[in-house]
């Protein structure tokens, strides 16, 4: 597991040679197809769901999202040309950037619905926890690779967890529970893929369950309320939403569920935009509800299939990566995508509590689109490196 000696430039030259050799496309075609498909679905959904929301600019969200998607796609192509191994040289700067960007938001950020998640820049508000997910993936992967020979040590697991918990606690403070949970999922998955002992994983899960029980059940029973009433409602309200309608977030979830149901088989995109009035946050966290009400079960299933395709390709790239570093990054990206898709869709269909997580590539927003595209770019880079290694060894891999 020596760090690669090639510079990114050399790496891209090599890839280009390989392409000209006609062996394969310079990227994973299925993964790319899924990304393009999701981008188109996002744009189309925003177009019908937000038409006329901004006075004087009927296609405001649509137009801006297209720009984000194109910029993101180009960024993805650019990253796929980089040798991901090059990133290992910047372990400390990456972690520092991760922590500092979150601290910057806490210090300078602007508030949204009672939480501070982004820094307002001219014409754009930057949500650092989005790009933070990616930074965490790259950093933890490098950290685990450095300790590859001591993976069975309890020490390694604890250190990885501790390093992941620092940014997690910071984003919890914003409060951005959703991103914090994604951070934890990423850390767990990287540990899991790296091969830490099962008992470590089991112990972590057990600790998590105990902590939750204390916060939600034991502490209140003892008269200590660690969470505000509305926060508890938010966490448990989805189980019986009609009883907690006065809680805004629980109510949003209920509305989203109604809207999705009302979409039925093929949706009502042609009926008129008034149905979108049901959908809260229709361009961001609840875009899946917008999609479902517009295109019905057919549209929702199609988009879900594209996500399944992405995750499958992610896992595939994980297993074909030429080194552990690549596998771990791929594992982290897959964890991020899976967790976000499952939790976001789970919230809109009313089976999970509201956490405020964006749907990768679908939700409107530059930070989210860009960081997802960069993550996919890393997958592409791992894929390319793996393929070129195989090619040099004279082996042909099925994709």
């Amino acid at each position: 597991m020596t760090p690669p000696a090639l510079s990114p430039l050399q790496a891209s030259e090599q890839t280009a040679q390989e392409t000209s050799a006609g062996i394969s496309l310079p990227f994973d075609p299925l993964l790319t197809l899924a990304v393009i498909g999701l981008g188109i679905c996002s744009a189309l959904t925003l177009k019908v769901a937000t038409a006329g929301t901004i006075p004087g600019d009927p296609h405001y969200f649509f137009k801006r999202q297209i720009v984000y998607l194109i910029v993101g796609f180009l960024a993805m192509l650019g990253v796929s040309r980089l040798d991901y191994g090059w990133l290992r040289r910047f372990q400390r700067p990456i972690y520092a950037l991760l922590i500092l960007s979150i601290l910057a938001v806490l210090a300078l950020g602007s508030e949204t619905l009672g939480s501070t998640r982004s820094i307002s820049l001219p014409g754009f508000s930057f949500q650092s926890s989005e790009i933070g997910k990616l930074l965490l993936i790259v950093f933890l992967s490098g950290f685990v690779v450095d300790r590859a020979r001591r993976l069975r040590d309890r020490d390694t697991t604890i250190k990885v967890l501790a390093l992941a918990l620092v940014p997690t606690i910071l984003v919890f403070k914003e409060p951005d529970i959703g991103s914090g949970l994604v951070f934890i999922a990423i850390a767990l998955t990287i540990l899991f893929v790296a091969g830490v002992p099962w008992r470590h994983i089991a112990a972590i899960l057990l600790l998590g369950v105990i902590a939750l029980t204390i916060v939600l059940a034991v502490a209140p029973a003892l008269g200590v309320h660690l969470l505000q009433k509305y926060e508890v409602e938010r966490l448990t309200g989805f189980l019986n939403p009609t009883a907690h309608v006065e809680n805004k977030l629980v109510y949003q979830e209920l509305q989203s569920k109604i809207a999705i149901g009302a979409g039925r088989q093929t949706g009502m995109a042609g009926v008129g935009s008034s149905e979108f009035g049901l959908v809260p946050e229709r361009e961001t966290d609840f875009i899946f509800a917008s999609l479902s009400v517009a295109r019905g079960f057919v549209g929702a299933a199609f988009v879900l299939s594209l996500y399944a395709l992405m995750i499958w390709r992610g896992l595939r790239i994980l297993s074909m990566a030429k080194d552990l570093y690549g596998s771990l990054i791929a594992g982290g990206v897959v964890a991020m995508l899976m967790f976000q898709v499952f939790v976001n869709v789970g919230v809109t269909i009313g089976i999970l509590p509201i956490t405020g997580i964006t749907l990768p590539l679908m939700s409107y927003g530059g930070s989210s689109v860009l960081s997802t595209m960069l993550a996919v770019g890393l997958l592409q880079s791992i894929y390319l490196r793996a393929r070129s290694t195989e090619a040099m060894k004279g082996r042909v891999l099925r994709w």
Partner: protein
Amino acid sequence: MTGLEPARPPESRVPVSPQMAWRVAVIGTLALVMFGIIFFRLWYLQILTGNHYLAEATSQKLRPLTVAAPRGEILARGGQTLVSSQTTAVVRIVPSKLPESVEGQLLAYGKVVKAVEKRSEPIEEEIKALQARLDGTGVSHTRAQRKQVHRERGELATLKRRLAKASALTVPRLSSSHRRLWSLFQRLGTLLKIRPQKIDEEVIQDVYQTRYAPVVIDSAVGQGPRTVLYERKREFPGVEEGPVATRTYPHGEMAAQVFGYVSAITGEELGSKVLKGVPAGTEVGQDGLELSYDSELRGTPGKKEIEVNPLGEPVGSVAKEVQPKPGYDLKTTIDLPLQIEAEEAFRKEIAAAQGRGRVADGGGFVAMDPLDGAVYAMGSYPSYDPSFFTKPFTPSAYQALTASQPYGVTGGEPLLNRAISGEYPTGSTFKPITAMGALEAGVITPGESFGTGHCVFEAEDKFCNSGHTDYGDRDLVEALEVSSDTYFFEVGQRANARGPVIQKMAHELGIGDRTGIDLPDELKGVVPESKWLRKLNEAEASCTRRKHGKPCGYVAEPGHEWTFGDNMNLAVGQGDLLTNPLQMAVAYSTLVDAYRNDGRGWRPTPHLGMQIDNSNGELVRVLKFPHAKRNVDLNPTYLDYVFEGIHDATVGAEGTSSDVWAGWNQAQHKTYGKTGTAEHLGQTEQAWYMCYIESETRPIVIAVTMEQGGFGDEAAAPIARLIASQWFHQKKKLVTGSSADA
């Protein structure tokens, strides 16, 4: 999701250990399960129970909303727009939707207001008392009296300063626990370039005033901040942006006090009888015509039922709609070209007077139809831009508009309509009234000549002509022409023996009485007489007893009884007389009506309203203003003498305003005019001019006064001449008179 099988031979991939393959399989399975759950749930929601949700989605609750009615316009008699409305983009804060309650800060502010009231009340009372005492002081005083007045004026100024200090309202700071609210104000402030502290103060002050009606934070907001507010709605809870109709004033400061202004209905008004049922947040008239004709202009708000979710947020389209009924337009009697000319003339003359070294910082004018009371033009100086009230403003800016001036300081108080709410002595413009009173009572006869000498000496006081001129003995007509004070002092002295005969005439003509004009805040004024003084003395005495010997200020000299000296001062429009240009215009109009009708004259009710039109410009109703009940029955011969006198004053060789009317076509439109120069202790004189210009079809009475303007023919008469020139389409000429009349 094939291709994840751990069974696939891993030997081709160097890094993939069997253990890792295993784990990848676990993740893959997790993904499978996850997608399975989602697909099943979606299938359940959309396919199995979709119809149920569709029904639920369409049965949203309805909520009624009020739709503001567009306010009617105020038009000139020719139909030109004087006050209109236009839609502008504003940013408002809806207090009830803010992320944190402002209740605590509001309570604290309420305490501050109470404390300030408590603090400033005694000072205010002291000021009132002192003011009344000073205002009640006539012209002539002994040296000691003059000294006392000067001392009291100094005292008053000190008191006013103390009051200003005591009544400064500061909004208590937002408590540091309201971090979310503060951060919201900060973000909004950055966006709109307003200090967050100011936003908070505005919210608190407005909410305190208007009880949770939306608070306009910024008007005329650009598209940029509006888009940001719209796109990032959830970053700005409780902040709304949208179009709101605001008043526009195409003629700026012109007749601002006459039109008045509108503002959101206050908490106090919400409970009032007049405005019962008017929804909160409605703009209602606060002053001037906007207030007098508020019910006509306001219109009836419409109703809209919109679909809302159980949180009360609008979610869908409009279900039911009752269109608002726009307010009616008010067509006024104001003649726009005349009004414009009058304002311009007034401003020009103010500048000219200031050029002559006068203070000349206030005044008012009225031009009206003497027969039916229609006011053609009315103005007050200084004025203000009424669009001030369409934008958010600071309390200090508002105070600057409304703060009353210390005694002895003219100018200021731009909200005050001096034409109807000024309280002034009139100087010699009062002489025709004195003359009619004295003639009718038989105190004097028209042919009798008297009044020689520069001064009349009575007891320890002396009463002099302006500039100590000696006019010699004059008869009534000549005395009016040259404006001989010594003549009228003697009239006042003689009349005093016969009781309040001048006062009776003044009251009959409408002085010291509200004219009944269709404007709010008209002041009554004072025509002093012995009974009035006695009453004040009694009030002062009982008040002094209550206050254990401290003077209350009802009268300048407690215990001073009415003397002929007071009557002599009144005879020349000085002393305790307090009236305003409109009352004088009504008095002259009544004389004119009597003069034209063999002595029988009606006292007209001055008015600005002419008719009510609907928003399509169709007539709804003609406004009627019947004459005041009282009419006068005067001796036509006496009237002839008086009118001859004031005609000669405009044309005669010695006429006080002959210079000003030089070149006027007397054959076509005969002029009658009287200058006046009211004295105020320690100040430049207040210029007055009253005139009547004859015409078969459109006679006009004009009243002009300028505070600290100097002599009447110098500062006031030229304005009247310009107004008259505009009215009769004669050549406009600014002629400054030169006679030094008192």
